[in-house]
């Protein structure tokens, strides 16, 4: 069978560039589509044309030369050409090398124009880079806002902490005045003793028994007040420590809950009672700063929810921790109005808030989600309670770093 007629028609009519060149690139044959693609309008012009002049990057000839000088009899490469109109053509070139009757190398080959396909892929690649850059900027902005949110929360807490410290400071100052007065009275008593008053007379006249018993009470009360101040400043110090958000270490979740309750007292003490059910849980390997932020957001949210009811009765915030299937679980439930089902699927979205304008940034719960799910591979969720109120829970992979 002779197929040459079919092949001739294929070469003449196809949308693929077929060529024959010398080793130095001189074109010996170019099919009609090839002439059209390269912008060669007259067949006469083809005479003596060197294919190298169409190379978008003349260095590509070196690649071809290294192939021609090797033992290879065929090659399969991607090539970029510039046609007469200056259009960039990306082609998939397949070539076969054979010697003619004079022993000179000739290349028989075809080039499939894949410019559109490549351009589409490259456009997609550019778009991906631009999206990644935009995402990066968005993430940076989110991180900045999250940091600002943390600073704002600490600022708000500072007012509460000042209030909590002021209270014991008030009675410590008053007690100091009493102690000073007692000291003056006892000094007077010693003066009288040295002036030979009868001891009985002195005791009755100068209330020595009362002073001696009250001094101990006053000192005890001062000690209690100082301890309260120390506790709250220690809690604040632990909470507000600015560390690297990527650094994880063993973390005492139960202690962190107590610290958070200490510094957030003003947010809940006039509206709700705290019920604590802290279970025996191991240290959690996590970023403590971030988890503190989550605890604070969830506890303050619980208090805000109760406040929204504007009830005269005190509400309840119940906090529990437990270890289930080697996972440390935290829950905080409130006796507030609960979450509207219509907003349930938006609650962890950034900038979503049900609080009044100026009270919430809408970043709190989204930040909690980011910290628990993205940074710690944990899980966070909420449920409405049967009577009223909502319960927010999170789980963290348990165990220590060991």
């Amino acid at each position, binding site marked *: 069978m002779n197929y040459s007629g079919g092949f001739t028609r294929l070469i003449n009519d196809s949308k693929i560039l077929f060529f024959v060149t010398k080793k130095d690139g001189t074109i010996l044959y170019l099919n009609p589509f090839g002439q059209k693609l390269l912008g060669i309008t007259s067949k006469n012009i083809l005479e003596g044309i060197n294919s190298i002049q169409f190379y978008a990057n003349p260095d590509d000839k070196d690649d071809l030369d290294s192939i021609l000088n090797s033992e290879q009899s065929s090659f399969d*490469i991607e090539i*970029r050409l510039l046609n007469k109109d200056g259009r960039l053509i990306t082609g998939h070139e397949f070539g076969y090398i054979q010697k003619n009757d004079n022993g000179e190398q000739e290349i028989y080959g075809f080039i499939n124009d894949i410019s559109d396909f490549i351009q589409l892929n490259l456009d997609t690649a*550019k778009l991906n880079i631009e999206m990644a850059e935009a995402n990066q900027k968005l993430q940076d902005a989110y991180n900045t806002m999250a940091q600002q949110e943390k600073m704002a929360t600490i600022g708000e807490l500072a007012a509460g902490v000042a209030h909590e410290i002021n209270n014991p400071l008030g009675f410590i100052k008053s007690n100091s005045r009493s102690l000073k007065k007692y000291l003056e009275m006892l000094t007077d008593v010693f003066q009288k003793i040295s002036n030979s008053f009868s001891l009985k007379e002195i005791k009755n006249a100068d209330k020595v028994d009362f002073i001696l018993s009250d001094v101990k009470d006053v000192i005890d009360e001062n000690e209690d007040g100082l301890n309260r101040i120390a506790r709250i400043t220690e809690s604040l110090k632990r909470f507000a420590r600015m560390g690297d958000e990527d650094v994880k270490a063993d973390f005492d979740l139960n202690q962190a809950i107590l610290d958070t309750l200490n510094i957030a007292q003003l947010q809940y003490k006039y509206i709700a009672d705290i019920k604590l059910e802290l279970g025996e849980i191991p240290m959690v390997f996590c970023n403590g700063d971030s988890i503190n932020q989550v605890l604070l957001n969830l506890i303050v949210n619980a208090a805000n929810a109760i406040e929204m009811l504007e009830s005269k009765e005190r509400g309840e915030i119940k906090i529990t921790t437990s270890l289930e299937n080697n996972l440390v679980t935290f829950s905080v439930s409130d006796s507030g109005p609960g979450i509207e089902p219509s907003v349930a699927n938006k609650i962890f979205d950034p900038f979503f808030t049900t609080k009044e304008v100026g009270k919430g940034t809408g970043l709190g719960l989204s930040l909690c989600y980011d910290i628990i799910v993205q940074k710690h591979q944990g899980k966070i969720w909420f449920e409405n309670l049967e009577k009223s109120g909502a319960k927010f829970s999170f789980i963290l992979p348990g165990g220590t770093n060991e």
Partner: protein
Amino acid sequence: MAENIGETIEYDGLFLNTDTGSNNEIKVNVKGRLETANSINFLNYMTQLIDASPTGCDLILEMSELYYVSSTGIGAFTTILVNSKKRNMQLFIKNMQPKVMSVLELLGFTDFFNFI
């Protein structure tokens, strides 16, 4: 991936060697030809390396002995750039040969990369 650090791996004419170096820097020597056929291997290699590397480190592609890049190879570069950005890593292309660079220029990709 980690077990291959320091070893030279070949994918059909493309030679890759990773040096974890120092100063929070990872250097990959890319030699030979990055063609359509081995671009996917290159991309897989780099993706695993990026995933296993500390966030925020510098990733340097040493290309003084890379002689050819196809458009698929450039596509692989862009995916590597995107993946490294996701891990907050800085990607640098070092000592790229002028003829390979001219391919990136032709296709309009030079603005996206840091060349050193």
